[in-house]
């Protein structure tokens, strides 16, 4: 056997963003270790700087159209990967900025916090590029490992501790399912790489294997019935970590799901469409209805996130190019609205030390800016035009209509009504109820920045979404023949 790895400089260029970020975060960690009395804010800004540099690098790649594969197709850098990497990094920047005040209350391990956040981001960047099941497993575990620690970061806080333990146990459990599924698929197909699987005939073992993998990824994105960890973990984790957890891993896991089902399993689309229809209906309905009963804003956003993922799954149920466009765009709208809402929660929470919805009473009197921002974010989540969330939902539903998924459409529309109710309950408390303590709430500049970015994103994506739509359409260009592939594969699809 010969040593068959050939890596040229231009190949390594494809890995440049990851390599840069790895080096950068090690440098940040080293600086944090070596310079005593360095204000943690400087570490935070250093981290933000590095992440933004990586982000710019990726944008530049996207502009140039750099694409390619590495390591025998295990690592792929295409526009889809670039989109999700930018998605992850954008959320990372916003999360780091909204963490700064929170981290101030730590007595030590401040620099390490940013290190772990960036490490998780790095893991998710790898996830976006993973093109075979082994890489999926390893990168998924990589990103989740950082989160295990981050969720339990408040070592002495019972809730955080409990959240960390639950997340860890269930996460490892999901990893077990994933490993089981991967081994089944490998046994059936003899390959781990997605693009090579596309040509294998269907078999039940393959189906079970992929179901197990879907269960593990469903755990990551919090789709019903794999959602059970979400409320407790979101509730107990430090709020900025919850914010991070609520958006970035969902994006990265969606990248894998899209790749897996669009590339490896395109031929079996008639089978998996129903899977997503069911998962989507369950997630939307369950998430929205349980959200009504919530008294804690973090739990509310957790359940609302479950429902939102239900909406995203509609796009997968459509299983077309337009479906994947819609997913990407929807996630983008969700990123701004969700992180914006969390920034408000963090800003308020830092000051009043509470996340109960009751304590948002009269927020409008205490800080009109925060209340107005929260209003816009919640309305965007509810899908009120002309905000971003509306366009996202529109796209998702149009994708469903293309495939004549009318049941899904009807359920989705009913869920929009239900969701309006609990978002409005929060709005009502902010705007109409009397505050117990009328003292004004002021938020720091970093959090304000995050809120402004969220507002800008929510408004621009709603009012002038065109460039972003063009971007996501370009990102999924490789799937434009996905429907044809299904048609071509149908005759031999019965060979199971």
């Amino acid at each position, binding site marked *: 056997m010969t040593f068959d790895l050939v890596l040229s400089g231009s190949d390594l260029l494809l890995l440049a963003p990851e390599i840069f970020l790895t080096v950068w975060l090690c440098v940040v960690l080293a600086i944090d270790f070596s310079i005593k009395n360095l204000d943690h804010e400087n570490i935070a800004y250093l981290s933000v700087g590095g992440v933004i540099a990586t982000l710019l690098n990726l944008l530049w790649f996207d502009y140039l159209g750099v694409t390619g594969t590495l390591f025998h197709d295990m690592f792929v850098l295409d526009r889809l990967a670039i989109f999700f990497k930018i998605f992850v990094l954008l959320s990372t920047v916003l999360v780091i900025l909204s963490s700064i005040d929170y981290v101030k209350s730590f007595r030590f391990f401040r620099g390490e916090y940013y290190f772990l956040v960036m490490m998780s981001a790095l893991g998710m960047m790898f996830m976006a590029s993973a093109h075979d099941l082994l890489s999926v497993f390893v990168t998924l575990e990589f990103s989740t490992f950082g989160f295990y620690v981050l969720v339990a970061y408040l070592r002495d806080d*019972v809730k955080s*501790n*409990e959240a960390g*333990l*639950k997340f*860890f*146990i*269930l996460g*490892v*459990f999901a990893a077990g*399912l994933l490993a089981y599924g991967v081994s089944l698929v490998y046994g059936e197909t003899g390959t781990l790489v997605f693009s090579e699987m596309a040509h294998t005939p269907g078999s039940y073992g*393959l189906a079970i294997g992929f*179901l197990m993998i*879907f*269960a593990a990824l469903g755990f990551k994105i919090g789709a019903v*019935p*794999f959602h*059970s960890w979400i409320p*407790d973990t979101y509730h107990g984790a430090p709020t900025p970590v919850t914010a991070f957890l609520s958006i970035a891993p969902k994006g990265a896991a969606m990248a894998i799901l899209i790749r897996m089902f669009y590339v490896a399993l395109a031929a*079996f689309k*008639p*089978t998996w469409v*129903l*899977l997503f229809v*069911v998962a989507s209906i369950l997630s939307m309905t369950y998430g929205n*209805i*349980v959200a*009504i*009963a919530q008294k804690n804003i973090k739990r509310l956003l957790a359940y609302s996130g479950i429902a939102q993922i239900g909406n995203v799954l509609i796009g997968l149920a459509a299983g077309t*190019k*337009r479906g994947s*466009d819609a997913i990407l765009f929807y996630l983008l709208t969700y990123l701004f609205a969700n992180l914006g809402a969390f920034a408000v929660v963090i800003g308020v929470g830092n000051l009043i030390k509470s996340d109960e919805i009751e304590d948002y009473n009269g927020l409008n009197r205490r800080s009109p800016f925060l209340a107005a921002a929260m209003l816009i974010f919640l309305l965007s989540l509810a899908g*009120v*035009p002309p905000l971003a969330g*509306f366009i996202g939902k*529109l*796209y998702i539903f*149009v994708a469903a*209509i*293309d495939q*004549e998924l009318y049941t899904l*459409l*009807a359920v989705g*529309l009913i869920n*929009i*009504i239900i969701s*309006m*109710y609990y978002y*409005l309950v929060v709005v*009502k408390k902010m*705007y*109409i*109820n*009397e505050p117990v303590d009328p003292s004004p709430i002021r938020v720091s500049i970093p959090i304000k920045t995050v809120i402004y970015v969220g507002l800008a994103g929510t408004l621009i994506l709603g009012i*002038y979404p*065109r460039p972003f*739509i*063009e971007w996501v359409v370009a990102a999924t260009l490789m799937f434009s023949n996905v429907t044809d592939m299904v048609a071509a594969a149908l005759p031999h*699809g019965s060979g*199971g």
Partner: protein
Amino acid sequence: MFDLLVLLIPGFPLVAVVINGLLGHRYSRELAGWLACGAVGLSFLCALAVFGDILGSKIAREVVAYTWIVGGALTVNLGFLIDSLTGVMLLVVTGVGLLIHVYSLGYMHGEEGFTRFFVYMNLFMVSMLLLVMGNNYLVLFIGWEGVGLCSYLLIGYYFDRISAAKAATKAFVVNRIGDAGFLLAIFLIFANFQSLDYTQVLPQVHRLSTEMATAIALCLFIGAVGKSAQIPLYTWLPDAMEGPTPVSALIHAATMVTAGVYMVVRNHALYDMAPAAMTLVGVIGGVTALFAATIGLVQYDIKRVLAYSTVSQLGYMFLACGVGAYIAAIFHLVTHAFFKALLFLSAGSVIHALGGEQDIRKMGGLASKIPLTHKTFLVGTLAIAGIPPLAGFWSKDEIMAHAFVHGHYGLYALAAIGALLTAFYMFRLTYLTFYGTSRIDPHVAHHVHESPPVMTRPLVALAALSIVGGFLGVPPEHGWMHGFLGSVVTPAETSSHTVSAGVMVGLMAFAVIVALSGWGIAHYLYAVKPQAADDWAARAPRVYTTLLNKYYVDELYDAIVVEPCKRLGRSWDWFDFHVIDRVVRGVGRFADVGSATSTWIEKHVIYGVLNLIAYANHLASWSWRKLQSGLVNHYAAVIVAGAFLLVHFLLVWLVGGTRV
């Protein structure tokens, strides 16, 4: 130039929203108020110019601001369609809007959040203008949601009223039900036409099958029912009266609630394709017209009576749509905007004079104290009751005549009874408010004063419009309005029924008799023999209380929709923590009894694994004993059950004969 004018119509209020919203706290409230009014005024001038242009050319024109959404087949412009229908709506919205804005300067004077109020009002204007100007369904929908949002914000304007908050939420959620129907219609239209532009869709509707046309028309109508407060979604409108009175006048009488009528008329080509949907529209309209009128008979809150009357009048408009009298619907929309805005603003003036009192049992004899308001209110009452030659007579008569002539006798009967009741409850309101002995609280009585000119001038203007507005549609079926709108709204069956002048005059005479008898009964009960009203109520107590409680519809909805939803949410939440836990525990205990002999070999597949992991956590010496670790394995159980269901599902699916 024309394009610029068109863009400026929503542009001016939008600029005012941005300026007042961002900088409003930097300068005085008066300035903010005048800025808002000025913006609407400029918008009105632009609308006049645009209207003049249409009047000359009578050609529909499209103006595109920019391409809003692109992607695959879905391309949507933020564009405007300017034709005569839009022209009429533009003038109503900006004209009445301007008068109400000016009125608000006086009415809201001294209220907390004055600037905020005008920001919302301007935002409402922008949304409403988008609604009537849009050249495609999606722009219509943004406007549609935008007005709903502003309505929400303005109903909940008074922080300190819990009832206001509830009413606001109710309005939004109920509207949202309608919106879901509307969205579904939009998706169906897109699925059928691959476009959302009126100019692409409406000329093509004849391609649709009757079933599809009916489905789309009904879905659109669900939206209209929500927005225009028809049965069964009307309950939010009376509650919406918690908002400030100018809001009630602008949003909940003159403009927003008529959006449903506008939408149906805009899509009349579609409704012409779907006779079943038309019938439903007519019946819902007719029933609502009568139903709401009966509730209006016994209410005591001056604004609520007007609210039920609005619901009832909107019913007339839908009735008109249902019988194919689209122009009459728009005609009534216009006259209704005049006289209902007038009635609300006059009522506002009364409330203003009485320092916030809205209960007509605590009014009376106000005619001499606030004479101008009295006169304008009286004009409004005469107009809505259908006393010729005021505006309401012409438009309502046309609707009823059209229904009769086209053989919809049932609907005609509903409308005629409704007209009788309308005349009655409006004059009841007038008598109780302005005539008879004063029942005003003595503490309030000596403060009673006529409103300032900034409020009364819009009243006079609206009163004038209510008097002469009807002549836009005279003679019936051949007035100016009909000629102008005819290019856009071609009646379904043109001139197939030629009606003799005698029948028309007879119908008119009957309508006048109906209106006058309503007045007469009210006069008898509230002016001649004031105690008779109570006698009547006492004679049929059950009917009276049912009406007073609005047929218990709110309670019914609470019981069958709202509460179950909440309970379901709570119970699922509770279920997560308790039931799964208990069930699993219970089963476990049951098993313990049975397997006491073999304690050491039991198949704890999953939980043993968790056990080990838990030991590993000891290593890090986590304080895990404090945790509710019992739940974790149940969560894992849920995940396993999920995976199990998936496999099971696959099995059933495959055994069922479908291929992998």
